[in-house]
């Protein structure tokens, strides 16, 4: 029920945006977020509920990379 999927914003027109969800193009509502083309958003029931925090995403990836290196995998 609380399943939400990431999508990348292609274009924004007022409260609607065209997004790419795993290769499929779809219109979603972006009333609740502030987005520009290129941003990643989380989609639930046809609306964007949150925007990806790029710094945090990069920090997470970097932390996992360091951990893998430390463990030698």
């Amino acid at each position, binding site marked *: *029920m609380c399943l939400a999927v990431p999508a990348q914003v292609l274009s924004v027109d007022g409260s609607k945006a065209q997004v790419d969800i795993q290769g499929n193009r779809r219109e979603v509502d972006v*009333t*609740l977020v502030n987005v520009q083309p290129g941003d990643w958003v989380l989609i639930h029931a*046809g609306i964007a509920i949150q925007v990806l925090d790029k710094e945090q995403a990069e920090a997470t990836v970097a932390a*996992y990379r360091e951990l893998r290196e430390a463990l030698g*995998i």
Partner: protein
Amino acid sequence: MPAEKGKLVRQYVERIRQRAAGGGRPLRLMEFCGTHTTAISRSGLRSLLAGTVELVSGPGCPVCVTSDWEIDRMLAYSDVPGVILTTYGDLMRVPGSHSSLAERRSEGTDIRVVYSPLDAVAMAEAEPDRPVIFLGVGFETTAPATALAIREADRRKLTNFFVHSAHKATVPAIRALLGQGGARLDGLLCPGHVSTVIGSEAFRFLPEEFGLPAAVGGFEPLDLVVALDYLVEAALGLRPVGLYNGYSRWVRPEGNERALALLRETFELREAQWRGLGTIPESGMGLRGEYRRFDAEVAFPATVPQPVPRKGCRCGDVLRGELIPSQCPLFSKVCTPSRPYGPCMVSGEGACAAFYRYGGEEAPVEV
């Protein structure tokens, strides 16, 4: 999942197992969220950690906690002349005391599954002579879409769009569960997507008031083991008891303030019935003030008697984390996904359905 991620997951699993095994008894960690329940079962973590960490499911499957009475109330809208009922697919097969939406549809009621409540608004605009009722279930992840649909219907000046709100708030349910003294938990895995809306800080009360380690986690195997690793460390005293946000790429401490404002303006908290937890004050979201004209309960009143409790079904105990699905006498004998007896077996996210599908000890970690 790339191979190196899979290796990292295995490393975490091994570390969690070794640490938890030193605790003298299995640690009890609860995942609140039904989407976590499915993700944990599918990844095989439940069986991989068995014996050292017991992962119990909580009351976070929205259709599972929807009471028989509330389902009966929704079914009563079938009697409204010309009605179109719309809802999410999850709700279709959930049994009330005597029927389900799927059965009503087979008997001729016009019931349509929608992807978004905004689709139901479009149906109301296309068929202005028929009342369109959206049956809204779900927590704070889902409720903003319903609120937006109501605003959209208002903007389009529709008078034939209505909402039955069975939306619920997560925090009051967790408080009720802990307040009832059940579940005897060592840590709580907090719902990832609910937290994108309400913020990780909404769960600060868990360590501060209940001394319970809390971790907000994502849904991939690596997200899950990182969050569980934190909970195990805190539960064993290897780090201070606190709140950890392991899903910070999507979850901000304050959540989504625009969505929260929309919820506050559209809904007001009211008493709600929860399967397994009983009646909890200020845990349900009813329509507020001027938006009551969209309230299906007001527009189409009906008297629905309190149903007799379902005989033998232990769904309520499962939702409190007091019973593992396989401990229910009906599990996989009388109650299966193809012939479900209780709601925890109906919903794909229900703990019983997840155990039935993925419960085997041989379930592998996804790589």
